[in-house]
């Protein structure tokens, strides 16, 4: 009984929130709340723009500005929030 349980994830019918990877979550979050759009408009490379976008997000949320998709940033992205974008283009 002390063996770790092996969880099986299933797709629940009617579930709007799908099981997404952290990267998918971050991409969607940065786009939805305006961070990526701003970067696209500046014409930077996509890889560069995501790092910049993450830094902007981390600054907005008072997190350490690493520009990386670290655990505190992922955790913050999973918090309930208002749907109004943080950054407007």
């Amino acid at each position, binding site marked *: 009984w002390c063996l770790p349980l092996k*969880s*099986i*994830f*299933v797709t*629940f*019918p*009617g*579930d*709007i*929130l799908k*099981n997404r990877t952290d990267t998918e979550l971050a991409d969607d979050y940065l786009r939805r*709340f305006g961070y990526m759009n701003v970067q696209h408009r500046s014409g930077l490379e996509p890889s560069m723009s995501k790092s910049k976008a993450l830094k902007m997000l981390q*600054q*907005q*949320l*008072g997190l350490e500005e690493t520009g990386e998709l670290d655990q505190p940033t992922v955790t*913050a992205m*999973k*918090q*309930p*929030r*208002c*749907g*109004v974008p*943080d950054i*407007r283009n």
Partner: protein
Amino acid sequence: YQTFAGDLKWDHNDITYRILNYSPDMEGSVIDDAFARAFKVWSEVTPLTFTRLYDGTADIMVSFGRADHGDPYPFDGKDGLLAHAYPPGEGVQGDAHFDDDEFWTLGKGPVVKTYYGNAEGALCQFPFVFEGKSYSTCTTEGRSDGLPWCATTADYGRDKKYGFCPSELLYTFDGNSDGAACVFPFVFLGETYNSCTTEGRSDGYRWCATTKNFDQDKKYGFCPNRDTAVIGGNSEGEPCQFPFKFLGDTYDSCTSEGRGDGKLWCATTGDYDRDQKWGFCPDKGYSLFLVAAHEFGHALGLDHSTVQEALMFPMYSYVERFSLHQDDIEGIQYLYGPKPGPDPVPPTRAATDPTPTEKTTPRTTTTTTPAPVDPSLDACRVDKFDTITLIQQELHLFKDGQYWKVTQKNEIKGPYRTSETWPALPSTIDSAFEDLLTKKLYFFSGRRVWVYTGSSVLGPRSLEKLGLPGSLERVEGALERGKGKALLFGGEKYWRLDVKTQTIDKGYPREVDEVFVGVPIDAHDVFLYKGHTYFCREHFYWRMNARRQVDRVGYIKYDVLKCP
């Protein structure tokens, strides 16, 4: 703080709002009240006023919806996005939308208002004991008609106070049936239904017919969620079914198995593998008041703040005792300016007194019962008073710079301007009491206290001068205890004031719930009336007798004010 580009704002201060529909999670009056309080957050610090419209187009149209709800920004199911709102302007601008896949509460779990029974609409008290068993949800135990009920005090056997819980057998909301209960079975498009259904709708709301044949009568309403109902999934509104089977295992309680996000869920039939019917288990939910106050900030022209403690910070966090952050105040006052001070005193009474014979009567500043401000302002329309207290044997009810009196013959008089009777006082009074020995009146507002002896006033003084801690934001309630003592309530504690020495007695503070058992620890007003102690939360009161037993829970409006 931030404002929207171009400092979008309303070009008028008398803002209107309209509530287009309701969530099944809470009773309509509780939702109305949450929205009204959310608007008040902003009207308290600006010149803005908010008037509710019941039809037509309002500046701020408020609605609940799920997923794709008619604008380009769909919601995303439970959690994640909670709500959104548009900055001021025409059309959809200024509107606020709330995701009804969330579980809307006041932030601390299901808010279950009762109907009928003998508790006069009081909220359920969870847990409560019935015949030796403790219940944390409404139950149909003890009844043969299937109506869920709850006790409104902790012990049904002792107090015998109960009411019926929201269910489709009791009432519906919205629709076209004026709240009539569902009729089962009913016929819809030739099919017979024995329970609420989402058939025929794309928005997932459960409905029922309120006559036995919808096809013929076209009468319908939406079903309120029971407190045990699941949230979202594909069975919104259905109760969990325990035990249930999932991937061959049997579950007797909600589980997060099968999910990567750790959320608790349950099946709504006995076999998930076969029926695939499920939903999320009820949790503390999100405070509709807090989320609405944030969204209304957008609707008035505020964008997201970067100050984590500010209301306009984009992430939700529950706070028990909300007060607007200075960052929010500065933001909204940047757009609309500060709230103007007390209304100027008119030069003569003629301006406020319609009685012709008194038009030439010189105004006197010593009167303690000035002419009513506007008799059409009805105390019965006030949902929540700033404070209620007994002065010269008459109940005084204060609200926004005005007060009403309830005479010993139970007549309501007023409103009167607080500033005419007690000119030194601010418009909001948190609590007050009369020291019966000296006839001095003590008024508390924020961190300040005023003492009136007749028309002379001492103060304001800070609460610390009385020996109250610097962390105490306000005195919520005050009870005159005789012999020169008064109890002062704040937060979850209370202190005993020695009125003679103007100091707090040793041994205080004490915890409210250790001495006053069964009353809300977050009461916003405490007062004495006819030998009982009343603890108020919103428009409800908990009445405690001399033996410190809660012997009644009810409405201030109906029971104390005798409103029709």
